[in-house]
């Protein structure tokens, strides 16, 4: 059972308990993350002042760490929408306890992802040149370029994800408002927009939420497809492939679900949410990860097959270099993390062992970050002309900014988890109602 003995009031008690003022250890953790973010900001300012020469970007590898981070974080975002929107449309019951955390992760992951193209631009302050606006130079963006598609897709995803999260929060924030005092009460009052839970409000809320989920579903698939076309539209061996869109989407869901595990397993203990987040929820998440691991493994095999089948010497050499070239060891790390280690999840015992799941999720995160790097930098390093081959090495500036990206994401997530409900009270209550009905009807409910 998901939440076997919980009553409706218990759900509020459990979740609102997480919104009590945090202690010193919490603020110390936030301060440490803020310090790493500060270091990243300093590194970025240094890069702005001196120029992109402070990075390891050299011909032929002009896309590397920053773009890897961008694709990785966009991918992380996707599982949140999968859990909150796609599984909502399928009325999947296990999502109720985990979806808010996943959706929150989506928003902050997109926020993190969006920073990296700006950092990669060098002259970040000209980012708006990607957008169409009236200007005296008579220039407009080329709408046939995947980079412009990207700006529209990621911008839309960012806006819709925020909207979806904030709208879903309204009934829960109203519950927090009714129990809070002081500035928190004022904050929740503003955020809940006067929600009272009347039948009229629920009627419009349910319709809007359903339709937003319906819109977010094709959106999430389109966004990572568009991100994959940043590569697939270029005639670079190793990139120019029609499999990229589904391959990237599957990889995104795979890495995102792993990140949900990485965040939820420690958070469950820290916030005392053991009753709301049971092994049953983690078991189901692990099944999604296992399924996506198999799809991603299939994509790796398919890529290799197509390179061989194409009989193109450039494609074949690119893949030969991918396996045995300067980044070959990273490729095998990727295979171990993404294809081999997740096979452990065939074991039901491991799927319900939170310690094991946490370790596996870390491996998957590493594997998926490495996958992005291998595809992006690896393909550019050994492209068509051997005389133009070159090996990329990240500079300390790139390493610092990459670490700051992780800290930035974690900092916002941790801040959110103590100030806004990280588990949806209304949806968990709906889950309890469903279980009761299933029990009364004598049906088989959750395992």
């Amino acid at each position, binding site marked *: 059972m998901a939440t076997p003995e919980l009553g409706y009031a218990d759900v509020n008690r459990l979740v609102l308990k997480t919104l009590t003022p945090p202690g010193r250890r919490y603020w110390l953790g936030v301060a440490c993350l803020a310090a790493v973010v500060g270091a990243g900001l300093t590194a970025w300012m240094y890069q702005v002042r001196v120029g992109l020469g402070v990075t390891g970007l050299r011909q032929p590898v002009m896309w590397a760490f920053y773009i890897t981070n961008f694709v990785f974080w966009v991918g992380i975002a996707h599982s949140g929408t999968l859990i909150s929107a796609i599984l909502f449309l399928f009325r999947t019951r296990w999502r109720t306890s985990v979806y808010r955390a996943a959706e929150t992760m989506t928003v902050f992951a997109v926020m993190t992802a969006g920073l990296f193209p700006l950092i990669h631009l060098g002259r970040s302050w000209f980012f708006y040149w990607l957008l169409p606006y009236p200007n005296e130079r008579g220039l407009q963006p080329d*709408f046939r370029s995947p980079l412009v598609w990207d700006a529209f897709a990621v911008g839309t995803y960012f806006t819709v994800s925020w909207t979806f999260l904030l709208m879903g929060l309204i009934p829960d924030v109203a*519950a927090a408002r*009714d129990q809070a005092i002081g500035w928190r009460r004022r904050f929740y009052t503003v955020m809940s927009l006067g929600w009272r839970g009347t*039948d*009229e409000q629920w009627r*419009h809320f349910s319709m809007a939420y359903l339709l937003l989920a319906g*819109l977010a579903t094709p959106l999430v698939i389109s966004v990572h497809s568009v991100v994959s076309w940043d590569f697939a539209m270029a005639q670079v061996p190793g990139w120019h492939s029609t499999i990229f869109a589904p391959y990237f989407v599957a990889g995104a869901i795979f890495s995102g679900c792993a990140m949900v595990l990485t965040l939820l397993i420690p958070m469950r203990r820290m916030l005392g949410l053991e009753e709301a987040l049971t092994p049953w929820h983690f078991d189901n998440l692990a099944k999604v990860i296992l399924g996506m691991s198999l799809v991603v493994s299939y994509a790796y095999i398919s890529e290799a097959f197509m390179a061989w089948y194409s009989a193109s010497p450039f494609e074949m050499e690119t893949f030969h270099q991918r396996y045995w070239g300067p980044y070959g060891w990273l490729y095998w790390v990727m295979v171990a993390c993404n294809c081999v280690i997740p096979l452990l999840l065939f074991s039901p015992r491991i799927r319900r062992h939170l310690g094991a799941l946490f370790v596996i999720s870390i491996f998957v995160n590493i594997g998926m970050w490495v996958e992005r790097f291998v595809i992006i930098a690896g393909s550019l390093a050994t492209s068509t002309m051997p005389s133009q081959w070159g090996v990329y090495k990240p500079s300390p500036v790139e390493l610092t900014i990459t670490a700051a990206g992780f800290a930035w994401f974690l900092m916002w997530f941790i801040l959110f988890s103590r100030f806004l409900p990280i588990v949806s009270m209304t949806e968990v209550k709906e889950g309890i109602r469903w279980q009761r009905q299933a029990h009364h009807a004598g049906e088989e409910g959750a395992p």
Partner: protein
Amino acid sequence: MSDAARVTALFVAEEACAGAITALRDAGFRVARAFTPFASERVAEALGVRRSPVRWWVLLGGLTGCAGGFALTIGLSTLYPHRTAGMPIVSIPPFVIIAFELTILCGALSGVLGFLVHGRFGRDAPAPGYRVEFTDDRFGVVVDCGTAEVVRVDEVLRAAGATEVSHEAA
């Protein structure tokens, strides 16, 4: 003194709340509103509420976004022609991507706007009869009736399983 009264009842169970609404409607009373701690299809069915007009907002927003996306891409490409990679100036397949994203964006934002407009949000004035228990674990029914009918409404509500019934002048 006003002849109108407002009766508010609290229920522990969703079924009891829905049953009370049905009983009240059968007895000829008008249920002003119901409060639920989560979206309840049973209560909605008992009230016989219509489908939300928010869907039309989404449709209108989506269509506007789609039209706007094509207008933007075709219009700007025609006004500022610049041929790249041998592709036509007006290349519909890549423009579909921009139009698609704007369809989703405008549909979503328009849907949220519709939700805020129809749900009458943005005010912190409590809905009459509201109790903080309704965001916790209680279901509520509010009936507007004449003072002479309060006793009868009270009876119907308690017979349906109300744990608490209170009334006030409306």
